[in-house]
């Protein structure tokens, strides 16, 4: 009954849904739930594949598999391993056509045995996007989509959308991450994150913009239902 109600009401803040860290504490603080909801889609616009892999690492901590859908054949597993992923958990799928790619994504997202799905998918029709979102909700799988920055203005079915801008850095690899959209959060806030090679984590950069505290964020906006796209 409770599950049926939850399904009817859609995802809610708190409750019983599993919250996963984004892999960077500073990004978690931007989100009203304190992390990403398992069973949702997250978009990374204009890069941030490594940042998404950090989130995937958290989602797959329970030993579940990470599916990499890589049609372009550019994913380099050695770099993923140095980002702290266990290659034994990784399933690399190389579909040949766009139709196969979409099918693979849907199947993988729908499967409860998968922790997260990571995919570079520049083109995605609205209807397919919605299908992916439903599949992720069914399977409770985190879908991480790398998309170009130009899709920013388009409607989205992703629950969280980040915009990544690389930043010239002094020493470390640094990028500015802007929260483009997320229900119940200050949209448009941005933080600077840096890759800390010694600890293997994404850290907040020293000269970050001032941010509202997480307590403010939690009370700032109640969860709204998505109406339409």
């Amino acid at each position, binding site marked *: 009954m409770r599950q049926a109600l939850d399904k009817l009401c859609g995802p809610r803040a708190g409750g019983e849904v599993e919250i996963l860290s984004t892999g960077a504490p500073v990004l978690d603080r931007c989100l009203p739930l304190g992390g990403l909801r398992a069973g949702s889609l997250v978009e990374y616009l204009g*890069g*941030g*594949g*490594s940042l998404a*892999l950090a989130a995937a690492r958290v989602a797959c901590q329970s030993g*579940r*598999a990470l599916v990499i859908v890589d049609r372009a*054949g*550019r*994913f*380099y*597993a*050695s*770099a*993923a*391993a*140095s*980002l702290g992923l266990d*290659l*034994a958990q*990784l*399933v*690399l*799928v*190389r*579909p*040949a056509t766009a139709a*196969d790619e979409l*099918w*693979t994504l849907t*199947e*993988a997202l729908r*499967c*409860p*045995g*998968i922790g997260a799905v990571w995919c570079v998918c520049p083109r995605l029709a609205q209807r397919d996007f919605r299908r992916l979102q439903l599949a992720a909700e069914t399977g409770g799988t985190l879908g991480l989509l*790398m998309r170009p920055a130009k899709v920013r203005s388009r409607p989205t079915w992703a629950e969280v959308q980040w915009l990544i*801008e*690389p*930043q*010239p*850095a002094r020493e470390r*690899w*640094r*990028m500015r991450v802007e929260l483009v959209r997320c229900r119940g959060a200050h949209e448009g806030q941005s933080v600077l994150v840096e890759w800390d*090679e010694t600890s293997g984590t994404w850290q907040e950069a020293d000269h970050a913009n001032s941010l509202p505290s997480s307590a403010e964020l939690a009370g700032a906006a109640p969860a709204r239902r998505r109406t339409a796209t």
Partner: protein
Amino acid sequence: MQRLLVAERQRDPHQPLLLHARDSRRGQLVTACNAAARRRGARAGMPLAEATALLGDYGQTAPADPVADLAALAQLAERCERYSPHVGWETTDPAPPQNPRSLLLDITGIGRLFGGEELLLAEIQEEFEQLGYAPRIAIGATIGEAWAVALAPREQAATRDLAALPITTLRLPDETIDLLAQLGITTVGELCGLPRASFKARFGEVLLRRLDQLTGQAAETILAYRLPPEFVAERVLEYPADSRPLVEKVVASLIERLASDLAARRHGAMQLVCRLAGRPPLVLEVGLFRPSADPRHLRQLVEMQLEQPLPGPIGRITLSAPLVAPLENRQQELFGGSRHEAERQFELLVDRLHSRLGAAAVLRAQLTADPLPERAVEEVPYLPASRSRSKAQRLPRPGRPLLLCSPPEALDASSVVPDGPPVAFWREREQERVARWWGPERIESGWWRGPSVRRDYYRVETETGRRYWLFRDLFDGRWFLHGEFD
């Protein structure tokens, strides 16, 4: 040996032929030779080099193939099933029965069906000779007796005098025969004259057992040969059909049938082959990650392949499971079974991906020791076998880009110092100015790996903050983009 002679019937029987196999201690040894080779002095067990020298240029050699021998023997065993309800095979080695060489038929009470045991024997002899074999067949009261009479010289076999049989017909190891020969014992009768009590200590237990098996004092059973069960379901359509729903329905019913056959034997299919006989025939193959006899899962896998266009009217549909394995029983859990369920769901997903995308598209990545970036990761098909194998964990090399260009993209770059880092490069007709760089990291491949590779890799950061992985080919000085940090 006989299998080869049958396979190449046009071969000249006078040409010497040797089969050889590798022995771990003595190198290549002769395992069998034909009559022509034996006339020239070749014997089984002698080194190959020695035997070929005896045969001269005229002789031929071939490697022994025990697997094919076994398959040929299995075929013969199948043919013999019409003569006996209980066909088995025998091995000269005591245990384990790995290398069977002869067939045993239990013909108790069968003879009268063929008009007497002698006629039965003649009929089997004729059938084998028609196939091209030269069999040695004998009937005996015990397995040992039949074996001995079959191997004995013709005149002794006719008299059926057990005492006169040579000891070589006793299925003894070569060293025991040699030892007995040195003692001057060549026949079974002479052997029986020796004090029985000393046999075990002097010749080992085998001799006693073989002797008793010959006389019938020790029991011996026929190790039955059985064909592995085949799982096939077939349906012939009355009228060739080209309507997809009909074909799908028939396939579904066949899968249902096959799955219930499998489940009855507690087996699951590891591979399914569905053959739609049309013009041209369409053959669908499905490989599974884990044996399954679940009709719903099997149907899903086959239907995924059925999505392609049908070749035309289809008259017959055959579904078979050439590869099966015992089903694993998993205990149902009352609480907290979700983990196993998740694992099972994952395996089903891998099956589906395999079925639709092909094995070459579903991969597992492994790190290798190769320093060359293209070869640092080995991608192997995602199979259950590779799942259990855990290689020694290699540490990934640091500073590798997440997105790799393969092959590397050539680009124009300029550097101030001739062998120094790049200052600017052009990508998609835009100039990118290098703000910072790290390197070089020199990577060279060994000369034994084909065209050799010498590169200086730089990690560069442009003024906009993007990071790339460039290298300069040290042979011609050209620049390449090899990856992008994302």
